[in-house]
Every structure is written in C-alpha cells, then in structure tokens.
C-alpha cells in the first residue's frame, strides 16, 4: 500500500517536473504512456525488448555458469587461487566499456562479441562471490562425505550446492543488475536492435518520449524478474534455516 502511494507520488512529481521543464525536455507520464502503447501496438517494443532480454539471459547464464565453476575451483584449490587471482584483479578493474570496445574490434560487430563482452564483465564478480562461498564450505561435512564414499554428483547436489546456494543467489542478484545495464551499452555501441539501440536512436533524434517509452518497460521487466524469480529463489534456498529450533 505504502509502495503504491510512493509510486503515485513519483508520477505526480514527474508531471509537475514536465510542466516546469517543458514537454520537449521531459514529456509527462501520459504522453510517454501513449507513445509506449503506440510502440507496443506496432510490435516494435516487444521485438526490441525481447532481443535485449534474450541477450541478458544468454550473458547472465554464461557468466554465472563459468563464474561459479572458476570460483569454486579457486576457493577449493590453493594453486588455482594463486594462478587465477591476478587475472581476477585485472578483469575486475577493467572498465566495462574497454571490454566491450575490445570485443567488437577483435571479434567483430556480432552477437558473439556482444554477449561475450557482457558475460566477461560479470564473470570476475561471480568468481569472487563463489570463491568466498567455497572457502566457507564445512570441512567436517567434506570428511563425512568422504568416509561414507558419497559419489561425486550426489555430493555436489546435496552437500556442496546447498552450502553454495546463498552465495549463488547473491551473485545472481548483483549479476543480473550489472548485466542488464551493460547489455544496453553493448547494444548502443554495436547492435542494430534492442532497447539500447532504440535509446541511441532516441538520443540522436532528441526524442524524449521514445527514450522513456523504452527505458521504463525495460526497468519494469527487470524489476519483475528480480521480484518474482531471484527473490523467491533466495528465500527457497534458505528455507531450512527458518526451521531452526
């Protein structure tokens, strides 16, 4: 309820701001909404939104999978940790824009470069978080699994994964917000479709209505994913904690 009030207040502030700044600089919410419906009716909105979401999904999955494996290996193995750490520091401190531009120059202006560049931006982040998780693994349970000769995959699923899940959820959460921001940059610089591309078009034409008509639904979708996918997952993996006596 309070959220709705807060949201209504935001719309009101926007409307007042639009009146003060003039429709050219900041179109009012209703004008943006009308434009949004236009774009939706023509199908363009769904096309660009879909393309961007597909890139987000691909880059996110790739980054989490690679980051989790590398992170766990580094957390469990001292030599791997020593070898990987300088790379990690380098990647962590390389600006996203540099990675994106280099990927386009070296790989070409294509989908592989775009998704790879986004994933590469997220991987070091996921590695750091999963490495923390792997370092915090319970050595006593490891020994238990060893004496009882629990097979590798069952050990992964029942002993390792539940201990890593909170770290994975945290990495996924911060990862998603990072990925969807960088995807727009990648689209702006080198793709001819997607929300980022449309925002670039709107910028060239100084079309504020178009810009907001694409930015808002995208933010809305990502908020939805966060609320309805990531958060329930987080709650689910820590469900057993609430049972503690």
């Amino acid at each position, binding site marked *: 309820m309070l959220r709705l009030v807060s949201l209504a207040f935001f719309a009101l502030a926007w409307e007042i701001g639009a009146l003060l700044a003039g429709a050219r600089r900041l179109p009012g919410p209703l004008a943006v909404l009308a434009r949004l419906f236009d774009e939706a009716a023509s199908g363009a909105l769904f096309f660009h939104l879909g393309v961007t979401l597909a890139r987000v999904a691909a880059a996110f999955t790739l980054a989490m999978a690679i980051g989790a494996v590398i992170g766990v290996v580094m957390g469990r193995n001292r030599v791997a940790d020593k070898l990987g750490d300088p790379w990690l520091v380098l990647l962590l401190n390389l600006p996203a824009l540099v990675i994106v531009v280099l990927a386009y120059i070296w790989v070409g202006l294509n989908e592989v470069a775009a998704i790879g560049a986004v994933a590469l931006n997220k991987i070091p982040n996921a590695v750091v978080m999963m490495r923390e998780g792997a370092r915090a693994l319970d050595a006593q349970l490891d020994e*238990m699994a060893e004496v*009882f000769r629990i097979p590798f995959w069952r050990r992964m699923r029942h002993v390792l994964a539940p201990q890593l899940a909170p770290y994975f959820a945290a990495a996924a959460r911060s990862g998603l917000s990072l990925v969807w921001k960088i995807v727009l940059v990648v689209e702006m610089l080198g793709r001819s479709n997607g929300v980022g591309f449309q925002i670039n078009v709107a910028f060239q034409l100084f079309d504020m209505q178009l810009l907001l008509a694409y930015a808002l639904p995208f933010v809305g979708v990502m908020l939805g994913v966060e609320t309805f996918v990531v958060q329930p997952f987080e709650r689910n993996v820590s469900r057993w904690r609430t049972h503690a006596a």
Partner: protein
Amino acid sequence: MSPVGARTRLEVAVGAKAYVSASGVKLATLEKIAFTLETGAVAAIVGPSGCGKTTLLRLIAGLDADFEGHIARPEPGRLAVVFQEPRLLAWRTVEDNIRIVAPDVADAQLEASFETLGLGEHRTHFPGELSLGLARRVALARALAVNPTLLLLDEPFASLDGATVLRLIEEIKTLVAARPMITLFVTHDISTAISLADRVFVLSARPATLIDEIVIAKPRQPMSAEAASDFARRIGDAAARAPSGQGA
C-alpha cells in the same frame, strides 16, 4: 598389502604419528599402537582426554594418511563413522540425511532403525530442530543404514545426560549384536567401555601408546557391581602404570 582376496579383519599397526602445530612445533601424538579385530568384535579405546584417541580413529577412517605404519580395513567393505559432532546436512530432513548416504537402504531396515532409536516422529524434521541427543541418534542411524563392515564411533556419548547415555547404550547393544561387522569406539568413560565392548584398549597420555588390552569375558551381559568395578580398576591401574603418564 594383503594378497588378492577378501580381508575380514581390521589390522592396525601405527608406528608413530606426529602433529605439527600452527607454530611449527612437532608433537608426537601416537606411538606403537597395534591390534587386530575380527568381524563381530566390539572394541573400545579408552584413555585420558586429549591423548590422541580421535587422531587414531581418523587414521583408521582413512581421513589422515600422514603417519608411519600400516592400517588395513576389511576389504571389500563399507566404512561408517559416527563423529563426535553429528555432522548432518542441515538443509535436508532426517530421512533424507540417511537416504543420501545410504540410497540402497531397505525401507524395512530404516523403519526398524527409526523404531529402535526412537526417531520415528522426527523423520521429516530438519537437524536444526533436533536436540544434540537426537541428532547423535540420527548420525548413528545413518551409519548403520550403510550396513558397514567397519563402524567407528568417536565419543558417541559425550555431553549427553546420564539417562540418555544408558538408553543409547542399550540401543547400540541391540543394533550391534545383530550385525556382522567390526565396531570400534573411542571414549574417555571407562564404564561405557565396559558395558559395551568385548575388548578394551587402554591408551596412555600423549604420546598415546597401547598400554593394556582387557578382554571382557561375557560382554554386554548384566554384570555384578564387583565385576564391573574390578574391570574399572584394572583399566585405571593400567593407565596409572603408563610409562609416560605426565598428564594430558
């Protein structure tokens, strides 16, 4: 190494085991401990606390290979360990904890083991909801569910109240009697050792060495008070005779 074929005995021959502390000091923990156990044996290791009983059990479990000597477990065979801490998966229910370790366990066997250990109503609970005594029993049920040829128990009764210990001893007696396996448990409590084991190995203070081996003629039978105190005195005497009894 033994020749090809099955080995049904547990052979322990530890020459020396040293432990290097965090500050780099080398501490002798175990010295000259040798014994052999046949299938069906129930043996106890007693000794002052801190003498290295747990270390010995870890060597036998194969969790630590850094020692001089030789340990041969029954082969082929299944090992089960009840650690001092229950070491359950907090995110799985009691029943899942057992089935993950022993996927082939028969429902009837699991049922019977829950019955004996009084865990029936707790099978869908999470370990965090259990008292330490109950969690220990789950660990015991888990160990038995794999139908081990060698069962190791590390202070299975530590920090439990007297009544619970007596119950648990009775339960273990029932469970152990029915199975063809070697049971070896570590305890600092002489009376538990006497009431459960048929052989008691007495260790000295650190560095622990085997100073006496006591055979209990009629194990796990009701024992007269004199007989029990007689055994307790023998074990106590052995510990007192220890060559390196400078205390733990």
